[in-house]
């Protein structure tokens, strides 16, 4: 390039002298000084550039992703130079969303971008480690006894020796070990525990399979082969929205993020999208340009507030009241004053709104009772199959009709083809008063309310009351009935002419529950805003055909009463006809990981090819008992009950409800009995009895008990905990200090007293000396040091996500993609896959002598999506029923455990897959052709006991299996599943997948690029024809029922316990009043607590929230130097200037935060974006980085969950009834932690570590 001299411009520099200096200077340089002397231009031969060009050079780029517990599932390019991983950037090659939408590229976030730091960081676990105290004792015993299993048995039986190594947990002293020795000890501990205590005393914990299905699956498979228990995580994390099983009969199904683009009204409610859904947030920012209106509901000025057209800041945990008020406006203006045709017809076909509820007289009024069913109709109708599960509507002539599609139609042979939402020529009455023959009959019903301020001096009585409102009624077979819709109007306070009861005088009537003015007093959100936004939401839904969407998240889902909050949200999307519509409906984004290739994954991980069923446990209950949090809880169940309750919970704690749930077979419970389940079978057979009957007899005669009745008996302890891909002690472990004290037996900062007197559970044996250190072995596999590895007895060094093969999927996008090794696992690290195969091999050797082939009695709860869901007609809890497995108690199943064959079975496909088929959500898939193909592609076992079986001996082969056996990745299976559903529903479905019938997505396919999945009956939405995935579109468009009692979405839940809690209908329940329940400080209190070190320091009690962090995904990345450099470099607590002023603390000063559960030390971040009275400690601040010792306990400061504790909600324990039946990670008590209160003070600024 040459540059013609210019004559037009004048030098613009400061003066002739300077110009001349530069003019001289330019002769010293190549290049060209601009004519005006401003600038120096250079071209060619720039040797000084080489440094950067060299830096941007690499040998290869490998596709992989991050197996962290987040929903991103982003595909990355990992750069490798000279065999060293250098850095990563995002892939941009996702299949297109189409010409009129933004694309998924470049998914990612700063956390993921910082991942490669771990590969070579000083926190990388490079070798196996064992705590020196334990290792020395083990070596000594092994040397003496010559057998690893005997050595472990002796060591753990010796109280002094075992207390010594337990006390040393978490106090350093880890020493390098060989793989041989570490694997030997772990194998011996497993073998001994199975032999001595039973396989259900071995627990496995690893969450979120979607983010690395094989790494999770191999360990779960191992656990399920040995008969160990896998702990659930979705409910334990409180991410499971219990409202979803309650309302939809579905675990969680939500739109992919590209479907936000289709919404024209978007409310982000407790979901801070830029932080928690970083790769997806752009769809929200971009949809605004398409005219989408955006609302943020958040108590603080959250990151997403920046994008919102309106910001509503309710007091934390009061969101339900705001949603109730919006619902009030919508019901009044869109369904009563004017009946919007679309909304009305939607409610008739897709909701339980028109279904009849029998009313029961109570005092001088009535209360809602049960769904009227065919069984209540008398005559021929009552004699049909499963009549108690066929719910009833009135037609326009006010005659009772049983529409298709209820639970009663789902399973029986008589009803084949009738399980559908086709109303035919039935036009149900939405309201009784719509009936032509209705003559004004109505009754007053009493409905509970929980928003009443307690009387002064009677705070311990709580704040519940009732409101009396009227509904129109009809009489059917002598029963007084009304519709769910009529009850809904009563519940929301929407009055109609001529009905009895107390009704609001208008939106401005704050005295009557449901109105905008009422919610303002609770939430502080101006009534006008609640009213207007409710109206806009519905108006938009009407104008757009249902494209109003609510993104809801942890801010509203981690509360004790989140199921009630969510039900008020779901009521909004259902009453406006938005569910099952692209761009509309609920979008729950909290830990909702979607294993898209679900069926294949389940086969692999549950080892269903070898043994069925698996022991899947509700994590919350497991940890609640194992860590002895129950001893401190004493939450009286009747304190939670409705003032209209019958008294089922009287005199009982929530722990007692857990015992009842266990015994009735509602929820699983492992360890199950106070005896080794292997021995139980032997004993039964020795006694000549059939094992199940033996168990029933032993329970009846009192010689056998459930472990849940005596969790502190040594024979009921969990003994071995095997953790991988998880950091339970630094992240999810609610009640962290109780874990340390009772499960591990080491130092802890528990400050609470144990429950006393009638606060102790009635049905659990109280032992005066609480166990200290129940666990014999904690073994953790990780690639970095966390609280869990710090406290573990043995640490296995894991390969990172850039060092192995695996699969990833999410519900945020519709693609499956892969992990691939950029480098081989360095040092002595191994993949999770290899680690479990290593342990299994050692166990198989030891099992020859110590275990052999045994039979195991597995207690199985009543399962969702099976006829078990019809165990409890009307959800009526009976006390007089005899023990019948599978009806009034758990099913009792005997399975074979071939322990010497463990390793061989882990690495090959068993026969049950083709023999029994694969069942997902009630659909049975037959994979016979696929298994034949896998024999060719994966190869077959050529020797040993499983000769001829498909090989699953490498991670890549396991990936191939998962893809081959799932409908989403195998069109033939998808079509086969749809054909089966067609028979059941009588509706056309196969067209959703038939054009992909020949498509197979293989592992090499997903290695080369992310691949879009195939529409499959495993899920409720459709990707057919390239459309965006939205939940329940198949239900709405193909008339496939929801998996609920009515087959529709439920506003009303009629189980006895729901009525007892006052939660038949959506209702506002405030955050738990911990002052009332436990005597904790009231929010805002500055009373001195007398805590150690607090003397002379101002203190303030505040709400303690733990929202997700910008600089970590749970505890992952919170120790990453890049994230620490971009934030405050250690644990912090955000607070308002007002609260900071109360305790005299300035920004970045050290503070301590403490309550009955423990102590946290952190630095304060003071910001005006925080509301007064609430602090944030972002989720999963581990104790590994920059955590000093506390003044309060003298110990190392705790993690964010050191201030929390498990609290059980009885409604989460219901089972055996329609959608309220157990499935793994589908239903169970949540490990909620949002209702917590803490006291904060400024501490000495001199900290010691």
């Amino acid at each position, binding site marked *: 390039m040459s540059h013609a001299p210019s004559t037009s411009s004048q030098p613009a520099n400061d003066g002739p002298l300077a110009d001349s200096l530069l003019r001289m200077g330019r002769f010293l340089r190549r290049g060209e000084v*601009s004519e005006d002397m401003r600038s120096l231009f250079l071209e060619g031969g720039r040797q000084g550039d080489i440094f950067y060009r060299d830096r941007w050079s690499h040998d290869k780029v490998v596709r992989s992703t991050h197996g962290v517990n987040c929903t991103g599932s982003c595909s990355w390019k990992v750069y490798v130079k000279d065999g060293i991983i250098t850095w990563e950037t995002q892939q941009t090659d996702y299949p297109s969303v189409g010409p009129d939408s933004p694309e998924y590229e470049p998914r990612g976030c700063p956390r993921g971008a910082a991942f490669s730091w771990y590969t070579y960081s000083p926190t990388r676990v490079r070798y196996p480690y064992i705590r020196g105290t334990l290792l020395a004792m083990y070596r000594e015993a092994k040397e003496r006894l010559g057998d690893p299993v005997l050595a472990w048995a002796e060591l753990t039986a010796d109280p002094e020796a075992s207390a010594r190594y337990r006390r040393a947990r978490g106090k*350093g002293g880890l020493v390098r070990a060989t793989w041989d020795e570490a694997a030997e000890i772990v194998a011996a501990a497993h073998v001994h525990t199975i032999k001595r205590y039973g396989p259900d005393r071995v627990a496995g914990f690893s969450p979120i399979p979607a983010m690395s299905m094989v790494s999770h699956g191999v360990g779960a498979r191992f656990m399920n082969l040995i008969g160990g228990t896998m702990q659930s995580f979705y409910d334990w994390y409180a991410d499971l929205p219990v409202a979803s099983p309650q309302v939809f009969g579905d675990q969680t199904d939500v739109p992919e993020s590209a479907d936000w683009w289709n919404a024209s009204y978007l409310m982000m409610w407790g979901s801070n999208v830029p932080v928690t859904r970083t790769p997806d947030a752009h769809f929200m920012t971009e949809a605004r340009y398409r005219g989408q209106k955006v609302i943020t509901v958040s108590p603080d000025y959250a990151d997403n507030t920046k994008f919102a057209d309106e910001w509503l800041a309710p007091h934390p945990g009061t969101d339900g009241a705001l949603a109730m008020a919006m619902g009030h406006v919508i019901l009044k203006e869109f369904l009563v004053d004017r009946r919007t045709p679309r909304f009305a017809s939607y409610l008739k076909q897709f909701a339980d709104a028109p279904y009849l509820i029998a009313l029961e007289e109570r005092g001088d009024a009535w209360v809602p009772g049960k769904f009227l069913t065919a069984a209540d109709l008398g005559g021929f109708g009552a004699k049909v199959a499963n009549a108690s599960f066929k719910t009833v509507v009135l037609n326009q002539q006010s005659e009772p009709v049983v529409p298709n599609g209820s639970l009663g139609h789902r399973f029986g042979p008589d009803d084949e083809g009738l399980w559908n939402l086709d109303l035919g020529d039935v036009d149900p009455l939405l309201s009784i008063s719509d009936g032509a023959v209705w003559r004004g009959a109505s009754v007053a019903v009493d409905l509970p309310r929980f928003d009443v301020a307690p009387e002064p001096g009677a705070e311990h009585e709580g704040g519940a009351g009732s409101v009396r409102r009227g509904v129109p009624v009809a009489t059917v077979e002598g029963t007084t009935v009304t519709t769910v819709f009529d009850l809904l109007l009563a519940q929301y306070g929407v009055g109609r002419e001529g009905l009895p009861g107390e009704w609001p005088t208008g939106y401005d009537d704050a005295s009557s529950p449901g109105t905008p003015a009422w919610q303002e007093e609770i939430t502080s959100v101006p009534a006008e805003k609640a009213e207007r936004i409710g109206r806009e939401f519905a108006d938009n839904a009407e104008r757009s055909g249902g494209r109003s969407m609510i993104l809801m998240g942890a801010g509203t889902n981690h509360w004790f009463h989140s199921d009630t909050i969510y039900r008020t949200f779901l009521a909004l999307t259902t009453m406006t006809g938005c569910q099952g519509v692209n761009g509309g409906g609920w979008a729950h984004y909290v830990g909702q990981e979607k294993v898209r290739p679900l069926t294949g994954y389940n086969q692999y991980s549950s080892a269903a090819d070898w043994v069925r069923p698996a022991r899947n446990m509700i994590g919350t209950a497991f940890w609640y008992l194992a860590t002895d949090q129950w001893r401190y809880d004493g939450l009286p169940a009747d304190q939670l009950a409705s003032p209209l309750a019958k008294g089922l919970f009287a005199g009982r704690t929530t722990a007692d409800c857990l015992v009842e749930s266990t015994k009735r077979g509602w929820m699983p419970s492992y360890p199950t009995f106070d005896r080794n389940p292997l021995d139980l079978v032997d004993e039964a057979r020795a006694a000549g009895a059939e094992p199940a009957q033996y168990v029933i007899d032993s329970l009846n005669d009192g010689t056998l008990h459930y472990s849940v009745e005596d969790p502190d008996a040594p024979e009921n302890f969990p003994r071995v905990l095997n953790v991988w891909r998880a950091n339970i002690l630094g992240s999810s472990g609610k009640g962290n200090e109780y874990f340390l004290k009772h499960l591990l037996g080491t130092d802890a900062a528990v400050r609470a007293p144990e429950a006393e007197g009638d606060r102790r559970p009635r049905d659990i044996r109280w032992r005066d000396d609480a166990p200290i250190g129940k666990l014999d072995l904690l073994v953790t596999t990780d690639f970095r040091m966390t609280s869990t590895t710090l406290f573990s007895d043995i640490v296995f060094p894991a390969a990172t996500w850039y060092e192995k093969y695996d699969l990833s999927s999410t519900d945020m996008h519709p693609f499956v993609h892969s992990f691939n090794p950029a480098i081989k696992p360095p040092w002595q690290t191994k993949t999770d896959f290899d680690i479990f195969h290593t342990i299994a091999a050692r166990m198989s050797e030891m099992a020859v002598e110590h275990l052999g082939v045994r039979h195991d009695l597995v207690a199985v709860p009543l399962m969702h999506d099976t006829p078990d869901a019809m165990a409890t007609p009307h959800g009526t809890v009976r006390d007089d029923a005899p023990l019948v497995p599978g009806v009034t108690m758990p099913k009792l199943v005997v399975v074979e455990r071939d322990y010497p064959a463990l390793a061989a079975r882990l690495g090959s496909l068993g026969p049950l897959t083709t023999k029994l088929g694969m069942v997902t959500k009630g659909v049975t898939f037959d994979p016979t052709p696929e298994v034949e193909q896998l024999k060719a592609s994966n190869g077959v076992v050529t020797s040993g006991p499983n000769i001829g079986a498909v090989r699953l001996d490498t991670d890549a082969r396991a990936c191939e299996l998962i893809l081959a056996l799932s409908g989403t990745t195998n069109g033939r299976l998808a079509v086969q599943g749809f054909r089966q559903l067609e028979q059941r529903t009588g509706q056309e479905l196969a067209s959703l997948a038939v054009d992909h019938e020949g498509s197979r997505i293989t592992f090499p396919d997903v290695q080369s690029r992310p691949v879009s999945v195939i529409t499959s009956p495993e899920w409720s939405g459709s990707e057919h024809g390239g459309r965006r995935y939205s939940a329940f579109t198949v239900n709405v468009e193909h008339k496939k029922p929801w998996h609920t009692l009515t087959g529709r979405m439920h506003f009303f839940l009629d189980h006895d316990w729901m009525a007892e809690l006052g939660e038949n209908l959506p209702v506002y329940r405030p955050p738990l009043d911990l002052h009332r329940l436990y005597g904790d400080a009231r929010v805002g209190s500055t009373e001195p607590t007398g805590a150690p070190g607090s003397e002379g320091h101002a203190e303030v009690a505040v709400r303690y929230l733990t929202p997700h962090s910008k600089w970590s995904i749970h505890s992952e990345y919170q120790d990453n130097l890049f994230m620490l*450099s971009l934030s405050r470099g250690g644990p912090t607590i955000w607070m308002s200037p007002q609260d900071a002023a109360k305790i005299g603390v300035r920004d970045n000063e050290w503070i301590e935060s403490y309550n009955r559960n423990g102590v946290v030390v952190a630095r304060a971040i003071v910001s005006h974006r925080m509301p007064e009275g609430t602090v944030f400690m972002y989720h999963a601040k581990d104790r590994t980085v920059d955590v000093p010792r506390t003044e309060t306990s003298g110990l190392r400061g705790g993690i964010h969950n050191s201030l929390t504790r498990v609290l059980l909600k009885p409604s989460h324990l219901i089972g055996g009834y329609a959608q309220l039946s157990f499935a793994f990670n589908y239903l169970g008590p949540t490990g909620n932690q949002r209702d917590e209160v803490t006291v904060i003070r400024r501490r000495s600024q001199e900290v010691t570590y």
Partner: protein
Amino acid sequence: MKVMAQMSMVMNLDKCIGCHTCSVTCKQAWTNRSGVEYVWFNNVETRPGIGYPRGYEDQEKWQGGWVRNKRGRLSLKAGGRLSKFARIFSNPKLPEIHDYYEPWTYEYDMLLNAPAGEHTPVAKPKSLLDGRDMKIEWSANWDDNLGGSGETMHDDPILKHMSEHVASEFEQTFMFYLPRICEHCLNPSCVASCPSGAMYKRVEDGIVLVDQDACRGWRMCVTGCPYKKVYFNHKTGKAEKCTLCYPRLEVGLPTVCSETCVGRLRYLGLVLYDADQVATAAAVKDEKDLLDAQRSVFLDPHDPAVVEAARAEGIPEDWIEAAQASPIWRLINDYKVALPLHPEYRTMPMVWYIPPLSPVVDVVASSGNDGEDAPTLFAAIDKLRIPIEYLAGLFTAGDVAPVEGVLRRLAAMRSYMRGINLDEGRDEEIANAVDMTGTEIEEMYRLLAIAKYEDRY
């Protein structure tokens, strides 16, 4: 006319989610090495806030950029070359390490190697400069999300100069993010500050670079750059800065920060300009005229005369085509929604920004008007949650009119597109109210919202 090509960037702040992915991918690729631990070629700062290094915009303190002297000519604010040579060994106008932050690490190895003891092992912080224990008092992004607002916000140089009082109160909270890289200015004061002639602008694309062989570590460039985007590598003793990822650009890849931008808010493209006009434009009298002056320097790549002149300069044909297809040209010139950062520094920066559209304050909506309705919005645009005056302080030397113009166009786009979205028709009047046609709005919408990879770069 002397046609030159400049590689430029536009960032749409209205889409920025403040995630810092750009910072991390840039850091990993370029400055993850000793001597530059504290260096972030790309950083993202929360505004209001004081940025990185802290308070860099306070040119009364740092003396960066150019000033127009009485003779109507530009001189370096820190003093001309003569005075620079005079104090070449003691340059006082430099941020110290604490103005960036003292880089640190932790005793991570103790987590594995701590001997058996009384307490749980922990990794305590250690300075990366001298290895001593330290309390972390500042970082590369200390005031993220208004953290510590009570301590720092009043030092935000923009807030200081605003006539309107901005209260740090919960109900009035606002914030947005400002990602920053080197501006690759047309009139770079860093280049002019370098006594060694080590800094230069590449002829073909205008990227401003430091010749690592020629740099003598005088650090005058650090002072000269008003954006503080030239850094000193304390190990090599040389200056380093954002290279606009030229090793990637040269093979047809966008910069790391652009391609990895999760908010999809960065646009890259060539702009043709008249190098002969730069000095005059940068020296216009009134700071508020600098925006128009800089726009006037740009040349219409579709103008046959410009094309001819470009060819005459030897600019290759594919570069001319690239300039014609450039999203930058459309955003700056056609839609006029992009604005330069601190034009008053007179460096003619070439990373421009679309200012963030914030909601109208509640007083408008609570009066019963729908804040999204176009006429309401236009009437209320001066009542946005983010004060327009604040944005003007960043992008237009305090002139609120151009900022208001941009925000009206963004607002009009939303209103207009909502009609299409709801199948309620195209309201041409909305477009006309912001001097556009519906077709133009739809084109702009495609570029801003759908923003395919090939349209961004």
